[in-house]
Structure formats: structure tokens, C-alpha cells
């Protein structure tokens, strides 16, 4: 049985359906890359899985560990073991990194989590999760906080955006770390080299999964463009 199962998911914007019949299945412990051009609804799919406000299914269902979760509030989904690392993580005035990394129910080793994202605990545990952190630092701390939660499913929304090229390797290694710890990963990315770490990959275009399979073949098909069938026009036009 898949850990995450999405069937016939439809999510409409006022003018058009953004997601129009998405089917996706993610087994436990698998890294699944989701690629697609800007505006195809990758982040929207992440928010729908997580249950963010303003993201409710128009049709279809989302199951986690066999149970429907699409009616549950966000924090209850989180308590089931789903977590999301936002592309642009929020900043918090007055909240220390060590406290932010201790929010989960599991007593995580804060220092270990920081080291795994390439940050020195001595330099960061007493920093605040506020605007004094650079974009790259904040992103790493977000990844460390997701690690600290030990989720069963982690959704990473563009985890390498805003990260320097040299650090991308570390992030790729970290994504592998989630898998080693038993987490399934839904990896939303534009980067082909990041896609390669996945066990499987899918391309989202025109509101649907248009291509699924091994990461190499999906990446070859995608290459930063809309799908071959529509070239960014037909799919969107339905």
C-alpha cells in the first residue's frame, strides 16, 4: 500500500482548473521528484497535500497511510507525520533556532540536525529565526527543522532555491538522509541534478501528470520545458 495516494485531484482557480485530475502514488521510503514549469501547480499540489488555507480539493481524494486526510486541518496532518519545507520559509521574531528545532513531538538532537544541513551548532543554536538570517541560512534551518520532526512524508518545495551551487550537493545528500531515516520525500524541483537522487519522478503539465518513471527519462523529457505533447499550450488549453 502506498503511503501517499492521490486520485483524481482537481483544484480550480477562478479562471481555470490548475490541477485537473492528478493521480500520484508515493510508497513509504521513496523519493519522488515532481518537475514542471512555473505555474503548473507543483506548489499548489504541495499545499493541497499539507492542507494549507485556501487549498481545498474540488474533486478527488488524498489518502495517507490508507486514510483520507483531505478533510483534516493542517496541524492534524502534521501530527500524522506529514511535513512541508516551504520554498520561502517564514521568519519569526524572537524565536531561537534551538527552540524552533525543538517544536516537534520527537525530542530531536538539535545539534545533529544543524550539522546535517551544514550549519555549525555553536554558531546557530542561539541565533534567531528572523531577518538576520540570510535566505540560504533560513532555508537550511527549515530543512533542519523538518529533519528534527522525523516525518513519515516530507514535501520539499524547491529545496535548492536560493542555495549556492556548492551547497546544492549537501542538500542532495540531505534529501538522501530523509530516505535513510525512513521518510518518503515528495521533491519539487526545477533542477535536473537534484531530480537524479529520486527513485521515481513525474512531470506535471497542464494540470496533470503527463510523464512518470525513472528520474533520468523524466528529466530528459522535461528539460525545463512544458511537456512534448503540448509545448506549454495545448495542455493548458485542455
Amino acid at each position: 500500500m502506498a503511503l501517499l495516494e492521490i486520485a483524481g485531484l482537481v483544484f480550480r482557480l477562478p479562471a481555470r482548473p490548475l490541477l485537473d485530475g492528478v493521480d500520484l502514488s508515493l510508497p513509504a521510503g521513496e523519493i519522488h521528484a515532481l518537475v514542471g514549469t512555473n505555474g503548473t501547480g507543483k506548489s499548489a499540489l504541495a499545499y493541497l497535500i499539507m492542507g494549507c488555507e485556501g487549498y481545498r480539493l474540488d474533486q478527488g481524494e488524498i489518502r495517507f497511510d490508507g486514510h483520507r486526510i483531505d478533510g483534516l486541518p493542517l496541524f492534524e496532518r502534521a501530527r500524522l507525520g506529514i511535513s512541508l519545507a516551504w520554498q520561502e520559509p517564514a521568519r519569526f521574531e524572537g524565536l531561537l533556532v534551538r527552540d524552533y528545532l525543538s517544536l516537534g513531538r520527537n525530542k530531536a538532537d538539535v545539534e545533529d540536525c544543524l550539522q546535517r544541513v551544514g550549519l555549525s551548532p555553536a554558531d546557530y543554536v542561539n541565533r534567531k529565526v528572523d531577518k538576520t538570517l540570510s535566505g540560504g541560512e533560513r532555508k537550511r534551518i527549515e530543512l533542519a527543522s523538518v529533519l528534527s520532526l522525523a516525518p513519515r512524508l516530507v514535501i520539499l518545495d524547491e529545496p535548492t532555491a536560493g542555495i549556492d551551487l556548492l551547497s546544492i550537493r549537501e542538500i542532495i545528500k540531505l534529501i538522501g538522509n530523509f530516505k535513510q531515516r525512513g521518510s518518503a520525500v515528495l521533491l519539487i524541483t526545477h533542477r535536473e541534478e537534484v531530480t537524479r537522487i529520486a527513485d521515481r519522478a513525474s512531470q506535471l503539465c497542464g494540470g496533470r501528470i503527463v510523464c512518470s518513471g525513472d528520474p533520468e527519462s523524466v528529466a530528459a523529457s522535461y528539460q525545463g520545458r512544458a511537456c512534448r505533447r503540448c509545448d506549454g499550450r495545448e495542455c493548458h488549453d485542455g
Partner: protein
Amino acid sequence: MGELDRLMLALDQRGIDRAVMADTATAHLMASGQNLLSRREVPGLELDARENADGIAARIRVARDAHIRQPLHLCFAVLPADGRQRIDLDLVLEEGAKLDIVAHCFFPDAERVEHLMDARVEIGTSARLDYAEAHFHGPHGGVSVVPKATVKVGPRGFYRSDFSLTTGRVGRLDIDYEIEAGEEAVAELTARVFGRGRDSVRIRERLVLAGRGARGLVKSRVALADDATAEIIGIGEGNAEGCRGHIDCMEIVRDRAVASAQPLVKVTHPLAKITHEAAIGSVDHHQLETLMAHGLSPEQAVDLIVGGLLRRGDAPGVVTFKLAPVAAMRSSQ
């Protein structure tokens, strides 16, 4: 139990070590209502305090180049439900002096209490004053706190003040501070207030950067719930070359609370610069969802965000402000 014992107990209950008041190396001044309960001087710090018709008049002077190692503790309280306390304070730091002040203000059972403060502070050349004032109020909201201060910071002097009223009901708070910073002086003011019920908060802080290269920050962090109201007036003036100032106001409102912010910026020298930012609104949605994605309920997430906002910059640990008891407070009115 005498007033001094009750005040000591109040310190205990707030996690403040009462032994500090017995420490002969630590200066203090303790007053309940119009009664002067205890005072201690230390070498380099003169402290003269007298009772008068409606409170306490105190004069504090730190001698030139004296660095007072332990903070001066000021404890002011009105312990009964009714009362009035007026603190008349003259504080002088002579050239090169250094002093930290920790002020504790207790009004645990206040139903009809007035606490007035009139302070005149002079910080000499290269002197440094760090002043932290924490209020501990009870659940009734029956206290009116009206602190007024004029502060002059001399050349290369440093003044930092941190006012916090986040425990219990505010009642009515009306702060009026005037700060003038001289050449290369630094002044930083922070006010952190959590208003609930029908609390009323008014904070007016005017920072005048008068000397060349003076720098200053006026920061307000206010959270409001229920029917509380707040009016924050931050005034920054830059009157000399190289002055840099910033007015920063953030207010979170919930329920039927109403907040306003009026930053006023005035520059009279072309090489001075004053900036301001003000943000008023409900709890940031993205912050809320980020915390909920960590498994926190909406209530826990709001408490954490508000707690962070009201937390002192260098204070350790997570401070959480439980909003849940507010309803209970309201029903007890």
C-alpha cells in the same frame, strides 16, 4: 505579613531571587505605595530616597568613571487593591559611569491603582545606562501606569531601555518618553506590551538625535486581544550630520482589538537620516502555517508568535503567552 515580606514573596513568585536584595554588593530601592521599605547604596552609587505625600522621591548618582558591577534593583509596588504611588526620580550618571538598572513593578491585586513615574535622566559623556523595567500586573486591569521620562544622553554616551508589560492585565498604560542624544551617542528604546480585555495602551516616544553621528532606535512590539486598544506614536528627529535613527513598530491584533501607529520623522540636517516602519495586523498567516506544519495547533502557534514578538532581545528560552486564560479573566471581571 508585612509589606516588605509581601513584596519579597511577589519577587519569589516571579522567579526573581530575593537573595539579591540581601546582597550587600547590590544596590536597591524598594517601595510599596508611599512607604519606603528598603534601600542600599554601593560604592560609586549614591541613592537618596524619601517618602512624600503621594509616593517616593529618589535621587541616584553614579560617580565619574564608576562601573557598578551589579544591577541596581528598583522594586515598586502597590499591593492592595486601591492605592496611588508617584515616583519622582532624578538619575545622573557622571562621565564614564556605567550602570544597569532592573526595575520590577508589582500591582498584583490592583483594582483602583495609580502608578505615576516622573524621571529625569542625565547620562554623561561616555557613560552607559542599561535600564530594564518589567511590570507584573494582576488579572483585574484596575491599574493606571503613567511613566514620563526625559533622558539626555551626553556625547558618546549609551542609553538602552526595555519596558515590558506582558504579564497580567495592562489596565491603562500611558508612556511618554523624550530622549535627546548628543554627539556619537546611542539610544535604544524598546517597549513590549500585551493588552487584553479592555486594556488601553498609549506609547509616545520622541527621540531627538541632536549631536553629530548620534544613533537611535525606537522599537515597539504590541500584541492586543479582546477589546484592547493601542496608540503608538514614535517620533524621530535627526538634527545633525551623520545621525541615523529608526522607528520600528509592530502590532498584532486579535478579536475586536484596535491598534494604531503614528511614526513621525523629522530631519533638519541634509546628512541625517531617519527611517520608520510600522506593521499592524493579525498574526502572519505564513508564520502560522509554518508552525502548524510542525504539529502545533493554531492556538499554540499564535502563542508562540506573540511570545516571540514580545520577548526581550537577549532573553533566553521560548516565552509563551497563553491566550486561553483571557476568556477566564474576562468572565472574572
